[in-house]
């Protein structure tokens, strides 16, 4: 019982902080999933392409970003990108400050967003590629026979079908990304996990972590339910869908 009163006290004392942390995490999810999806479209098309000069770079991108941990990618971008840019500007910090890159390099949120977006692009491209492969060849051939060009076929026939097929996996990526926002706390961002860390370092009370665990559980449950409903809504015209 003492535990639950401590837990309730944790929410009571820190709800403002916790809410702002949750907000930052959700902003990161929305931005990185939106941008990641946009980036995934060309990558998935390139992966399914016959031209090897388009296919190989896309596949290499996919292997590197799906084969290495997001944690490493965040550090690579957060610490590595500014260092690499500085090298490019010959070690001249003043010149770098004047450059168009400075707004990006000086914002922890934007740097983390870059890493998350690249990671999401790689995973979502893989989901979309699976969707693209599920589109029956006959549909493409029929569209071709109607005189549609490559881009018109992609836009009207292939991509909508691939998207619906890939939707469950894409929704999963959104939930994985929400869980992964905890990594942003390792580069001083005050997301939900970062707020939990701050409270823990002040109080040395593990209840702080239990408290944020509760929030993660609730948000993941809400997301899962919401996405399940959306999926059913989008496939309601299909035979066999309830």
């Amino acid at each position, binding site marked *: 019982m003492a535990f639950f009163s401590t837990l309730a006290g944790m929410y009571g004392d820190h709800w403002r902080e916790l809410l702002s942390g949750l907000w930052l995490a959700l902003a990161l999810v929305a931005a990185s999933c939106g941008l990641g999806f946009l980036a995934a479209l060309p990558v998935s098309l390139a992966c399914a392409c016959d031209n090897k000069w388009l296919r190989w770079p896309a596949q290499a991108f996919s*292997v*590197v970003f799906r*084969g*290495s*941990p*997001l*944690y*490493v*990618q965040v*550090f*690579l971008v957060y*610490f*590595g*990108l500014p*260092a*690499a840019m500085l090298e490019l500007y010959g070690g001249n910090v003043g010149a770098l400050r004047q450059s168009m890159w400075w707004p990006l390099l000086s914002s922890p949120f934007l740097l983390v967003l870059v890493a998350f977006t690249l990671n999401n692009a790689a995973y979502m491209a893989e989901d979309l590629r699976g969707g693209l492969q599920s589109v029956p060849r006959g549909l493409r051939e029929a569209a071709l026979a109607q005189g549609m060009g490559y881009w018109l076929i992609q836009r009207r026939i292939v991509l909508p079908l691939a998207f619906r097929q890939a939707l469950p996996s894409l929704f999963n990526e959104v939930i994985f990304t929400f*869980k*992964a*926002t*905890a*990594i942003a*706390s*390792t580069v001083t961002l005050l997301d939900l*996990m970062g707020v*939990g*860390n701050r409270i*823990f370092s002040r109080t040395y009370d*593990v209840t702080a*972590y*239990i408290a*944020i*665990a509760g929030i*993660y*559980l609730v948000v*993941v*449950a809400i997301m899962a339910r919401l996405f399940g409903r959306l999926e059913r809504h989008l496939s309601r015209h299909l035979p066999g869908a309830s």
Partner: protein
Amino acid sequence: MDLQGFGAQLLAGAWLTIQLAVCASLLGSALGFATMLAKVSGSRLLRAAGFGFANLFRALPELLVILIVYFGLPQMLMALSGQRVEIGPFAAGVIALSLIFSAYSSEVFRGAWRGIPAGQVEAAMASGMGPWLILRRIRFPQIVRLSLPSLGNLWLVLLKDTSLVAVIGLQELMRKAQMATSVTKDPFTFYGAAALLYVVISVVSAAGLQAMERRSRRGLAA
């Protein structure tokens, strides 16, 4: 790529990463199998416990689980036993990662459990086999074969999650890269090298997993 003498350190870190992943996947598979048995059991209480456990650890961020195990578990054990308990970063990492691995793998095992034709189990029962013998001789071997492809994917996810154990100070690959960076002030090289090492381990183990899958299917008609 100039590693400034830190190459051996990175390789030592990679070796610890592999050890961590192997330990967590073995322990996690065993725990996942037990969780699956709870999920398919006749008892409503056991089923609820199995699903609750798996859903909990599938919903929590991996980093948070690692921190809760590292900081919270010793306190919990101390409250229970009254003795001072310390858990090192390696043990905490293995425990946390195997909890997560078991949550996902229990779902994989459950799918495989349901993939075994009921007729086989009935035939075994008709031959006079008890539930344990059926589990050992009929179900287990087929569950292993049916779940290998998905377990392989979980292994690749686990391999990447091990990097998070760096947060509690275990000197695996990611932590070694951080240490090298703090000395050389060259983050791009060392995090890049770490990322590539993870990719290499992933690609090599993916090839190994494919060979294991092929072997597990030997004797089956294609």
